[in-house]
């Protein structure tokens, strides 16, 4: 009866008194128990605490306290967001059993909004990967076809929402980690402008690129969630937004006057024909709503992915140095002295992909290589920012595919890192430039696998992107489809 229900629909039921918060939370907890984590989406479920909190919110609602529009709605978080009451593992053996001593700022914001955290979601280890296969606790299965990947690194978040296991989730996006799994799983997600959402408590992969964002069944849920989590935080000086987003539902049905750029070279070459067709159909749909399209050539395509992996790797190599076996997390029992403890704990505690990126990052920062790699990558990053700046002089936004293919088979790319990395070609430049983007479902390929597209905007143009996405979702119903065998509540 609640199959495919959105977070806002759920909160409407609560407000109308048709379901109590406890009933809602109980329903989801019972559902999760029944599913036995068949898609391996959850790494932890908060049973007792969630129910206690549900009662608390229920009391507040009954006593007439004004909470957010999402009060009482359950949510689950990617497992790189620190929660005091639930272990936070980053899907790594390194942090297995680690319980944070503090809550991430977004967790505090969700609490204040009256939302109820019911669990932590699977991902690529330390958010490094594009398929949710690199984690230490097994891959996430795509609810549309369990022989396929859910995308990554926020694969657990996208798959849990797609499968109806939770109404909404938070993910994080460093190079496409919200948008690509949303595309693979047929759900909606927002990668906010860098500096819109506090990163305090988000276990860092690449600090200058990471951003937490919402994943939901439609754009309205994502917009509501983004309003809750965005805004300044004195604990994060890179969170430069002056006040939280406040989106106004315009009920507009037309996009007259909106100019959208279409990167011609994203759509030839390595892209899957059906993905290309779905993306072009999405463009047509927006065009028929009044938007004007113009093609352009995206420059520097040969350098974007390289620059991303150099910068992300460099930051990761430093960010992940603190996992040394001393203070928390995994410590090798074989170590006989300090240097062995470092070496063995890190060799045994980290997975292959994480080690690959730490080594890459350490290399590009080494003396003698810094100028040749890291500094060059920073220069490319500046050029990419400049390119986007001039593009947004011409366009309100840019429409592009999210990934070159739909979800691929589990294990298909895991041994071919270069192929895996090239899957990020359409997403990473957005992070390098710190821009916002929304990922929206736009149909299915012949194998009945979801395909998504993204709208990329100028910094802090989330409202414009959301309004456009809303018009698109009013005219289509791809986001309403649910996978067969998905959780039917």
């Amino acid at each position, binding site marked *: 009866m609640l199959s495919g229900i959105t977070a806002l629909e759920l909160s409407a039921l609560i407000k109308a008194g048709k379901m109590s918060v406890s009933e809602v939370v109980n329903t989801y907890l019972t559902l999760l128990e029944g599913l036995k984590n068949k898609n391996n989406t959850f790494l932890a479920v908060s049973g007792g605490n969630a129910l206690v909190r549900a009662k608390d919110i229920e009391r507040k609602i009954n006593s007439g306290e004004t909470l957010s529009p999402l009060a009482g709605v359950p949510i689950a978080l990617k497992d*790189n*967001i*620190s929660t005091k009451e639930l272990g*936070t593992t*980053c899907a790594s053996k390194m*942090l297995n059993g*680690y319980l*944070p*001593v*503090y809550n*991430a700022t977004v967790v505090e914001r969700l609490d204040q909004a009256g939302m109820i955290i019911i669990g932590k979601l699977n991902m690529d280890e330390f958010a490094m990967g594009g398929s949710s296969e690199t984690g230490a606790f097994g891959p996430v299965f795509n609810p549309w076809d369990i022989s396929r990947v859910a995308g990554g690194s926020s694969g657990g978040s996208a798959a849990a929402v797609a499968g109806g296991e939770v109404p909404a989730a938070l993910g994080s996006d460093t190079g496409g980690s919200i948008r690509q799994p949303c595309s693979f799983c047929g759900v909606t997600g927002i990668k906010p402008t860098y500096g819109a959402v506090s*990163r*305090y*408590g*988000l*276990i*860092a992969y*690449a*600090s*200058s690129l990471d951003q937490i964002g919402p994943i939901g069944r439609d754009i309205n849920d994502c917009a509501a969630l983004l309003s809750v989590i965005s805004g300044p935080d*004195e*604990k*994060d*000086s*890179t969170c*430069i937004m002056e006040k939280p987003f406040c989106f106004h539902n315009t009920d507009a049905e037309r996009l007259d006057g909106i100019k959208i750029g279409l990167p011609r070279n994203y759509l030839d070459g390595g892209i899957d024909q059906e993905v290309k067709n779905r993306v072009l159909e999405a463009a047509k749909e927006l065009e028929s709503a009044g938007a004007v399209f113009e093609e352009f050539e995206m420059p520097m395509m040969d350098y974007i992915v390289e620059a991303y992996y150099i910068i992300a790797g*460099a*930051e990761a*190599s*430093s960010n992940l*140095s*603190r*996992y*040394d076996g*001393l*203070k*928390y997390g995994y410590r090798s029992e074989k170590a006989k002295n*300090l240097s062995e403890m*470092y070496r063995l704990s890190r060799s045994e505690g980290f997975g292959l992909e994480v080690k690959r990126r730490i080594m890459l990052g*350490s290399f590009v*920062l*080494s*003396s003698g290589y*810094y100028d040749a790699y*890291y500094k060059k990558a920073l220069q490319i990053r500046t050029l990419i920012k400049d390119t986007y700046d001039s593009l947004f002089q011409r366009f309100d936004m840019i429409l592009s595919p999210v990934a070159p293919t739909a979800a691929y088979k589990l294990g298909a790319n895991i041994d071919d890192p270069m192929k895996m990395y090239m899957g990020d070609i359409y997403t990473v430049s957005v992070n390098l430039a710190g821009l916002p983007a929304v990922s929206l479902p736009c149909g299915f390929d012949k194998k009945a696998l979801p395909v998504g597209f993204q709208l990329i905007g100028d910094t802090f143009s989330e409202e414009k992107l959301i309004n456009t996405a809303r018009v698109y979702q009013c005219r289509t119903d791809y986001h309403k489809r649910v996978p067969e065998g998905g959780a039917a509540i």
Partner: protein
Amino acid sequence: MSREVVIGLEVHAELSTKSKIFCGCTTEFGGEANTHVCPVCSGMPGVLPKLNRTVVEYAVKLGLVLGCSITRNGKFDRKNYFYPDLPKAYQVSQLYTPICRDGQIEIWTGGQKKPIGIREIHMEEDAGKLIHGPGDSGTFMDFNRCGVPLLEIVSQPDFRSGDEVIACLEQLREILLYLDICDCKMQEGSLRTDVNLSIRQPGGELGVRTEMKNLNSFKAIRRAIEYETERQINILERGGEIMQETRRWDDEKGESCGMRSKENAHDYRYFPEPDLLPIEISDAWLTGIKENLPELAHQKRQRYIRDYGLSEKEASVLTGHKNISGLFEDISEQSGEPTEAAHMVTGSIMYLMNSRAMLPEELRADGSKLAVLISFVLSGKINRNTYKEAIEAVFTKDADPETYIAEKGLFMSSDDKTITGIVTEVLADHAAAAADYHSGREKAFGFLMGQVMKKLGGAGNPAMAEKKLRELLGG
């Protein structure tokens, strides 16, 4: 062959800000292990630094005083290395854009003035401490010091002797104390110096240098420089080569030993700290800092000589430490008698401090009480002996001047009636002496005077007594 020693310094000054550089924890020294910590300074996963702006202000203050150019758009960099006292495994520091560059500090050695170049000053966070337990109980970590703000002051290799190094460090300490940005307690590690030393032929190319660490006192620095100079010269005299390395000074043994060679030097993989915004120092901010710079020792010295007519020597003693000049100015201001205040501080106060081996940083005397004593002595209410005694009482026991002197009955009897009475009595008791005086024996006057003072019980105003005695003797 003549040899010249070339020395450069890296001085770490722990700043006396209330809170740490990137979190709100206290910077207080000591405290039970791991009680001055939070998720941020203990490097828990997911935390972010938040810059304490006072650290920037302190750095700019020092930079301005040392004539440095101030980096208006700077940033922090990460210095990556593994060590248990560094919980993030990187130290947030500044490599590419130090906040201050190209300054100078003037030192005096052997009556000569010499400028020493300051290459740069940069901001960084301190690391924690390792505590080695008794026996083989293990090594423990104390993160209290993690994130305490540091300024690293890097000199040019401009020193040619240990004397110059010490003179510079004394001068730097004086500046840091007057700026009130570092308490300079070497024994607590709040002022730490690494010495880079090499040997060359005078004016020739620089030799291979070694870096010496663990120098915890000026004495240790001087000894370490002597030791290292001799060690390097011995190697060179024997035709050997100096190895570039870091050496650790052992003050007990009076020798240093190698810690790590150049081959084993860390590659710190510095890169810009992405968790902090660039440090922008606006015109307004810079102007504000400039306008609020305190008067420094050498400026005070000049002012004391110019405005108060003090001697160079007195002025130097008074500005030797911030606490001493502070006390002097306090007394001077409250009494309105700078000359008398200067004499008191350079005389009695310095004597009392020296006799107790008291350090200037321990000086805590009440300037307003001492000022009261000046007004007493100048107005003739007490004599100089009482004055000295009362200074000591205020200094050692924080006594109240009025009460103390009154209880001891040391206020001078300076009312005419009392003195007239006593002089009359003395003349009556010692008529023979009075007669001697009248017959021209001046000595007799001294005797009579002694009798008068004795009767006045030490609280007599001698000038008044003398006047009265002569008057009544009819002399």
